[in-house]
């Protein structure tokens, strides 16, 4: 990377913007593919995106990215300018997508701080070859265009030749530009453009500064030479040239009239055709039309452009942390032990107001962090496209509810699982065309991505109308691998389907390129569980499979019931609690193994003594002295026995220290939180406790 631009904000911005553009580009390509061709809008957009990436990456000295994007830019420049008829659109899409992948890869490496050493020369070769082919296949058009420049004037001379004799002085100027200032020919052109105000009698060399980019080289080596006559003094002319930007050196000398004539003559004989500059029409914009556009469009863009700012996620994380601290601090003040037993009417009033505002702040901060799932969903188009091509299956992707929002942190965690599920659906779910027709299904398979809100959770579903899961096959497989211990008829459908989430399970004997590469559904399940979510598998043979990911809206703050066991306090997420009750001794059943259960309304539920489980000393060991909390998750229930309930409160979830999480492997804990009195409360992971 460059020494000049190694500062982080620039790099961050580069990575952020390039990734966004690349994603946008991918969507354009996929959309164009559906329309079977690139319309002019798409071509323009792709050109612009590639142009931007080329510029930014060149600034950051990522030359490989810059050359790749340049090659694509060239192709689309050609498409835009020449509008050729014979385009191999599918090959072009493939090529652009290949380039997209390359750039994505490089950006990922840059992000990870790795070396970007992947050589794109092969890709660039293919791109250039493609452009060359495109040009030759559409020769008739491009030739016409190419011939045009030849007609353009090669040599500019003053229209008013008679006036030349009246000028007092004759000069020769040789101008050298700074090294690396680029576009020397255009810079030379600027001088000629300006000198017209001073004289109408001038000649310059090299002559073809406009049409021939190679004239840059000549100017670099030999300088840009101008011969001219004028009434201005040497000092005035010197000052005129000194204004030139990126001027490295100027040689200005006064000439004799004869010398000038000689030069003028030789130059003139060299040029067959002399064209007059001022006769060339200069485009004058139509006033009315354009201004109308400005007014019409500016209204729309002004609103959209100013109402958004981008903020780094770390700042939002900080804000979230602070709000969390504030919620805790608020509890510390309002529930302060010093206040107990006091009558504080005014204080209570103020406290309620404070509580209301903190709740509102919390909601707002939360909503700031919410991101729509649409970007994540749209990414799946690419996967569906690639897979259906490779596997030769016709698959359509349907997206429902992509506006549904979840916390930014959670989005990052579900992107990979989602990708895996979509791959699975196409690879294992959707049948090949023949098989589908034999089953009287539509030849084209459908994969549906759906998202919706359900209370404090978001449900993300991947549905397919494929062959569905075969219960007995799954059971047999699990049995062979020693993953089940129950009989098949003792298990519910859902329990059997859930076996595919168990580590070490994979039904397909031959592992295809896309899915089942060792990382299977168990990894998906683990990913989702890591953000406090769960997976539900539903399927009907020959009808299809629905895999639902249940994900919490946010991780940071939950409603919790604070309970007490001995001297410790625990928090149970209110959302999992069904009820709490004081049991009657006669409802308790003990089975021969000594396991305790309780009958509630004719149903039998297992009991978990929390003090036994975490080995806490407490005086409350008899069921009649304490209280039961019935919790439920995934349609399974458990009664937790605790000493007493302390109250309900919003708590800020903090991650458990690594020591407890990884080394001690203490089960059943989702995290911890600080209570109002400053003590620590452990948050129970209900799902895990039920599975025990």
């Amino acid at each position, binding site marked *: 990377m460059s020494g000049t631009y190694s500062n982080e904000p620039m790099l961050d911005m580069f990575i952020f913007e390039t990734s966004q553009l690349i994603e946008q580009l991918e969507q354009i390509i996929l959309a164009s593919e559906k329309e079977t061709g690139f319309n002019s809008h798409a071509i323009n957009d792709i050109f612009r995106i590639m142009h931007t990436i080329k510029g930014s990456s060149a600034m950051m000295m990522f030359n490989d990215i810059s050359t790749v994007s340049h090659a694509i830019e060239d192709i689309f420049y050609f498409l835009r300018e020449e509008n050729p008829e014979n385009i191999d659109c599918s090959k072009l899409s493939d090529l652009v997508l290949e380039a997209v992948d390359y750039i994505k890869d490089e950006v990922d490496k840059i992000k990870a701080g790795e070396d970007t050493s992947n050589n794109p020369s092969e890709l660039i070769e293919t791109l250039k070859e493609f452009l060359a082919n495109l040009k030759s296949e559409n020769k008739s058009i491009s030739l016409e265009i190419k011939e045009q420049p030849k007609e353009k004037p090669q040599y500019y001379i003053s229209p008013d030749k008679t006036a030349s004799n009246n000028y007092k002085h004759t000069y020769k100027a040789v101008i050298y530009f700074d090294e690396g200032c680029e576009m020397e020919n255009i810079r030379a052109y600027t001088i000629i453009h300006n000198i017209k105000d001073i004289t109408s009698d001038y000649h310059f060399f090299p002559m073809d500064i406009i049409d021939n980019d190679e004239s840059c080289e000549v100017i670099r080596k030999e300088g840009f030479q101008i011969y001219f006559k004028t009434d201005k003094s040497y000092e005035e002319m010197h000052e005129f040239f000194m*204004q030139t930007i990126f001027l490295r050196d100027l040689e200005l000398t006064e000439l004799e009239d004869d010398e000038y004539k000689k030069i003028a003559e030789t130059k003139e004989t060299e040029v067959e055709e002399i064209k007059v500059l001022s006769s060339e029409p200069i485009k004058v914009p139509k006033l009315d039309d354009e201004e109308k556009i400005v007014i019409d469009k500016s209204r729309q863009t002004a609103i959209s452009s100013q109402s958004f700012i981008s903020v780094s996620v770390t700042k939002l994380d900080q804000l979230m942390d602070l709000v969390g601290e504030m919620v805790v601090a608020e509890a510390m003040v309002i529930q302060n032990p010093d206040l107990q037993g006091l009558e504080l009417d005014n204080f209570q009033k103020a406290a309620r107001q404070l509580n209301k505002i903190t709740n509102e702040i919390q909601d707002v901060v939360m909503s700031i962090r919410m991101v729509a799932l649409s970007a994540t969903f749209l990414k799946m188009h690419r996967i569906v496209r690639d897979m259906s091509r490779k596997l030769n299956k016709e698959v359509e992707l349907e997206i429902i509810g992509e506006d549904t929002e979840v916390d930014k942190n959670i989005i990052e965690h579900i992107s990979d699982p989602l990708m895996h599920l979509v791959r699975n659906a196409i690879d294992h779910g959707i049948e090949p065309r023949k098989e589908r027709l034999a089953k009287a299904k539509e030849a084209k398979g459908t994969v549906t991505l759906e998202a919706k809100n359900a209370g404090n959770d978001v449900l993300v579903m991947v549905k397919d109308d494929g062959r569905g899961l075969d219960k007995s096959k799954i059971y047999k497989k699990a049995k062979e691998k020693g993953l089940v211990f129950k009989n098949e008829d003792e298990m519910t459908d859902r329990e059997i389907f859930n076996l595919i989430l168990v580590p070490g399970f994979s039904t397909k004997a031959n592992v295809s390129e896309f899915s089942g590469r060792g990382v299977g559904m168990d990894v998906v399940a683990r990913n989702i569980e890591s953000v406090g979510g769960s997976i539900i598998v539903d399927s009907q043979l020959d009808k299809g499979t629905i895999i639902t990911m249940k994900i919490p809206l946010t991780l940071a703050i939950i409603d919790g019931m604070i309970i007490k066991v001995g001297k410790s306090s625990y928090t149970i997420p209110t959302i999992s609690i069904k009820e709490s009750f004081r049991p009657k001794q006669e409802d308790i059943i003990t089975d021969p193994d000594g396991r305790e259960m309780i009958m509630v309304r004719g149903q039998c539920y297992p009991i978990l003594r929390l003090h036994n489980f975490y080995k806490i000393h407490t005086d409350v060991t008899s069921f009649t002295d304490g209280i039961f909390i019935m919790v439920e998750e995934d349609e399974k229930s458990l009664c937790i026995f605790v000493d007493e309930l302390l109250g309900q409160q919003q708590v800020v979830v903090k991650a458990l220290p690594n020591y407890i999480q990884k080394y001690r492997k203490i089960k059943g804990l989702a995290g911890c939180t600080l209570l109002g009195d400053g003590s620590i409360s452990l948050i129970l992971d209900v799902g895990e406790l039920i599975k025990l």
Partner: protein
Amino acid sequence: MKRILIVDDAAFMRLAIRKALEKNNFEVVGEAANGLEAVKKYIELKPDAVTLDITMEEMTGIDALRVILRSDPNAKVIMISAMGQEAMVREALINGAKSFIVKPFKDEQVIKVLNQVLEM
């Protein structure tokens, strides 16, 4: 302190130019991401100079240049161009752009061009 308006559709480029300017005691009075915004901001802010990208959505730099110059014939507009855009730079210069910078650029180049244009 001279007041500059930066126009570029790439946020990265705007940042790059902003950094270069702020390091050298210029005031960046505004940023615009397309030609239309550029025209609006120019009229609203009346900056001492504008750096204007050529390839943009909504309205290209060249069109924006024309409209800006119509509203203020003395506007000091510097085009930000890339290699391969010679023809467009030339068109911009004919239409009244004061100078141009070629991407990728160095900070010193931006400052040099700006100083010279501002002295004009």
